[in-house]
């Protein structure tokens, strides 16, 4: 498939590059791993196959051969050859079909998966684009006009189909209530906050500022204060770590976060809510609620079970569909 117009930041991502953080090589990977996996499952891929992560404005693609694709994550009002196409479906495209995105209706990041995956660079055991290192994914950079991505798999024309086909079943992607409530666990330096700042953290909502990207979200409200200014010797930080900055603002570390840091770690967003956070954007408001480890793990397991069920259902439906199409 060919990029006929570049988007603002379209990169190849997978489930992340782990095992290299001791070298300062951060994991990167899809911001919304849940949606990344949903797109892969719809396309009949394994959950960790490389996908294209897009923001708005997103790229315009032309398919140079038939393919089975799927979209998940943010709704950027997609169309093929000008006809609106839905999320949560597998779509069989034919040669010269043009996929584009018209406006950001909901969410921040959308994922495009292609059945069989894409022939892109694997660096240190991951396809994820490491923009700083200039490695992994498509030449270690974001996609540009004229780039051509080779598909690893081939997909036969569906008999008698001259146009793209939306496969009939839809993925049930909802695994919990939709809201902007972010569950967190206390961080090691939480107790350093003044009583007033602790209350502000818990009781008020925070606005995600425009200075938010794949590295982290700057979120603001009333500046928070710590009791003392004792420096924290640099140590590891995690996806979802909420750090207190010197100006009293907060940063929530996201997929391209540094491996280590020295700012106080006030809290950590639970793993099951990373995807929710990844679909929020500048101007959105969030509220933090404390939870505990057992609840965080239960939610994670619930999310994983939902994905597993989805994978089984998709595999079954695809087999059934192809079987019927052949006969």
């Amino acid at each position: 498939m060919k990029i006929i117009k570049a988007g603002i930041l379209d990169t190849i991502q997978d489930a992340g590059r782990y095992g290299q953080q001791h070298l300062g090589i951060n994991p990167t990977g899809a911001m919304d791993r849940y949606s990344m996996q949903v797109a892969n499952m719809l396309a009949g891929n394994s959950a960790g196959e490389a996908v294209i992560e897009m923001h708005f404005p997103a790229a315009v693609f032309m398919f140079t051969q038939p393919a089975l694709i799927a979209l998940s994550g943010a709704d950027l009002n997609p169309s093929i050859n000008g006809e609106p196409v839905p999320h949560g479906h597998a779509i069989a495209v034919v040669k010269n079909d043009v996929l584009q995105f018209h406006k950001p209706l909901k969410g921040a990041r959308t994922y495009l998966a292609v059945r069989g995956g894409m022939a892109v660079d694997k660096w240190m055991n991951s396809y994820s684009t490491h923009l700083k290192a200039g490695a992994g994914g498509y030449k270690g950079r974001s996609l540009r006009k004229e780039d051509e991505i080779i598909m690893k798999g081939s997909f036969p024309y569906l008999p008698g189909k001259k146009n793209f086909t939306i496969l009939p079943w839809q993925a049930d992607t909802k695994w919990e209530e939709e809201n902007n409530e972010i569950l967190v666990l206390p961080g090691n330096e939480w107790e350093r906050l003044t009583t007033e700042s602790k209350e502000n953290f818990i009781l008020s909502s925070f606005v995600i500022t425009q200075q938010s990207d794949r590295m982290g979200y700057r979120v603001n409200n009333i500046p928070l204060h710590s009791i003392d200014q004792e420096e924290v010797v640099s140590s590891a930080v995690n996806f979802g770590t909420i750090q207190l900055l010197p100006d009293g603002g907060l940063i929530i570390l996201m997929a391209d976060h540094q491996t280590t840091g020295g700012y106080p770690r006030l809290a950590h967003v639970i793993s099951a809510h990373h995807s929710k956070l990844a679909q929020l954007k500048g101007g959105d408001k969030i509220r933090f609620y404390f939870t505990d480890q057992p609840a965080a793990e239960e939610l994670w397991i619930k999310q994983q079970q939902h994905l597993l069920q989805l994978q089984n259902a998709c595999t079954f439906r695809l087999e059934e569909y192809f079987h019927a199409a052949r006969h």
Partner: protein
Amino acid sequence: MNAPLPTYRIFPLGDNGLTVDFGNSIDEVTNQLVLGWFENLRQSPLPGMTEVVPAYSSFTVYYDITAARKKTPAGQTGFDHIRAALEQRLAQPFRQEAVVERLMKIPVCYENEFAPDLSYLAAEKKLSAEEVIGIHIQQKYKVYMLGFLPGFSYMGEVDEKIAMPRKPQPQPVDAGGVGIAGRQTGIYPLHSPGGWQIIGRTPVKLFDPNQEEPCLLKAGDKVEFYSISKKVFFEIQNAPSLREGTGRGL
């Protein structure tokens, strides 16, 4: 040798990580212990562990919640399981293997165009630029940890005479920039915003994604800087094969 285990504290780093903290300090003895356990855990990972990340005086174990819960009795969390396994490991006698210490000699050009903050630092410390350079190259530094950027080495400790706080606002730093922050010194492997006081630049590539081992330095290395002219800087920079001779293997 068997070293007695100093007291440590375990705290969660989110729902899929836990940090073993030997105290908020920058010292060689603690760091040696951190690096020892890092090697130990890399060679025999705990069940469910995905990776281990060493820092100055702590290391962090990341784990896969689903995998960690597989062997967990009902009512116990994955965290409980990993924590128990880790405590068990830490209770075993720690053997500090005799490691072959690598000494890496890194050429640095301290001339003005590569050293935007050298004259400021010298003036603040009431030294001449030559004195600052002399102090910076007179000793060996230990690489305590890598972090911040791929291959960024946190080294210490510089002489108090040239110690200098970070800048209030980060500024663009070129790849190879050699900086000072407090009593730490380090090299920016990539062009990046940074807050360290930049006193020189090395032509040696600290990070190269195309190499089998992309980072030139690793935690535990000793580093010695030596001063080179601008002419030599460009000679080294334009001769990629010199990377071996100047950095690796020395």
